[in-house]
């Protein structure tokens, strides 16, 4: 009996309304990543600083000798700064192959032959990376805030620093959006995830190195706008109402961040297509 005689049935069931294709992509991407032990290890490692900070907050709240460890608004800003290194590795691990691997396997024409817009595809991929980045930045920072309230047994700190919740939220989302869109744009430029990872690291370290050289020459921090990490630091300090580290006006730093997001969007618009046309 030929194998095809085992039958093909017409489908008479319902179909989901359009517009949720991105969620399918995100769900599948997350499922694939959490199945990898190495990645789970990286996630666990990224949560280590949270536990250290939680112990610090517990000690400050319960041991008079440790009162000097009491959290301040800058504790939360510092915590987010510490998470940058984990965010970097997660960005490279998760983001480098998001589009590059699809380009290598010609998967874009499969995706875009389904009832899925290019924007939905990009958003679905973006959401995978943003989910994991928020999982190691926004989620532990907010949990720390809750831990502080729980261990202190009152809302005093929270009420005195009510801006912390929106500050953490705005800063982490700005940070994560910039990092994720930039990585996704780089991922769309190549078919090799390894090359994309190196490229991303190069962009981050190169801009920081250029700023370092300019600072060494001019002894001025007014060129910090050339470094994306410095721009994030500058905007972060404004959001957390802390003294600024650089003399670059913070709106310039913000413009650089928004500019990078816009350029990344343009790159994605050009590169994510069902057919690659070389005219």
């Amino acid at each position: 009996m030929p194998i095809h005689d085992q039958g093909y049935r017409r489908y008479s069931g319902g179909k989901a309304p359009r517009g949720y294709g991105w969620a399918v992509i995100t769900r599948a991407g997350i499922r694939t990543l959490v199945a990898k032990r190495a990645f789970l290890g990286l996630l666990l490692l990224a949560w280590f600083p949270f536990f250290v900070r939680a112990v610090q907050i517990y000690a400050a709240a319960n041991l008079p000798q440790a009162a000097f460890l009491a959290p301040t608004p800058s504790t939360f800003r510092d915590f987010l700064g510490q998470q940058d290194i984990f965010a970097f590795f997660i960005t490279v691990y998760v983001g480098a192959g998001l589009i590059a691997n699809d380009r290598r396997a010609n998967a874009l024409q499969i995706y875009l032959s389904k009832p899925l817009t290019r924007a939905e595809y990009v958003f679905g991929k973006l959401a995978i990376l943003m989910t994991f980045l928020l999982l190691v930045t926004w989620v532990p920072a907010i949990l720390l805030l809750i831990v502080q309230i729980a261990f202190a047994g009152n809302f005093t700190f929270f009420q005195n620093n009510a801006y912390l919740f929106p500050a953490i939220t705005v800063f982490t989302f700005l940070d994560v959006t910039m990092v994720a869109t930039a990585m996704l744009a780089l991922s769309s430029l190549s078919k090799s995830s390894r090359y994309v990872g190196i490229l991303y690291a190069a962009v981050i370290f190169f801009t920081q190195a250029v700023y370092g050289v300019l600072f060494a020459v001019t002894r001025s921090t007014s060129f910090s706008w050339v470094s994306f990490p410095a721009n994030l630091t500058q905007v972060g300090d404004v959001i957390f109402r802390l003294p600024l580290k650089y003399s670059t006006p913070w709106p310039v730093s913000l413009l650089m961040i928004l500019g990078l997001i816009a350029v990344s969007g343009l790159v994605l618009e050009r590169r994510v297509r069902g057919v690659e046309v070389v005219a």
Partner: protein
Amino acid sequence: MTQTDSVVTLERVTVAYGKSVALRDVTASFSAGAVGLLGPNGAGKSTMIKSLLGFIVPERGRMRVLGLDVAVAPLEIRARVGYMPESDAHIPGMNAVSFVAYCGELAGLPRVDAMQRAHEVLFYVGLGEARYRNVETYSTGMKQRIKLAQALVHDPDLLFLDEPTNGMDPKGRDEMLELVRDLAHNKGVNLILSSHLLPDVEYTCDHVVVMDKGAIAAAGPIAALKQPRGRVYELRVKTRDGAVDAFVERLQSAGLDCHATDEDIMRVFVPGEGGARQLFALAAADNVQVRHLRPSVSTLEDVFATAVGEK
């Protein structure tokens, strides 16, 4: 939609890649059922399919698929069509059943239904035993089958198959053609089969659209196209000096289309109603003996050769 309706229509469609024009003012209609899109490499077949899917925006013209305007409702169209691309294509890092189910979900199937149909279509295309293997470990033939499976999983009303037998061994090719034929003739799936292989189209399709250099060279039911306006004969002759060139020239000057197919057998197209009688008359006039004369059945190859001017 009745069987006689067109599932795809193109009206004066022009597509260009920079200065290179891939489709020139193409007007065509694809009827329901199985339609072959035939043409040599570079004729514009894949460009036409990609334009119909909305991957490429034409410079001019209008296209409709399943009654929907491609420029207005590309997502509605893609929800109802399946596309099997020409080149290797898969979602990296997935096994076959996850890949096909994922494609089903992307097409809007609920998760449980998508998984159930993924198993079904993988058995249907002959990958049932290999469905838990990573797609990246598949052979070329298996990759062709999984591309068909992902195109079928959401039960499309229309399938675009772009060179489905590319790279397959003879047995695999026959099985793929059987599947395509079964889909079109027994399962009620409309399909457009793009190929440069005449036997594939002739075996699976009822209608054909022949393309050449970005334009439509011929179109219609294969049976009708194979009906010549005149008759084709296989002819072997013996001349006094053994050379047939002069007789061939004589036939051509009499308005008969004549070309050699083998060492001493030629195919002669006799237009109009003259038929064999005209051939015998010309042979007698030139003192040429007719050693073999047999009416020949016109093939799709003849149609193709005539359409693209390869006489």
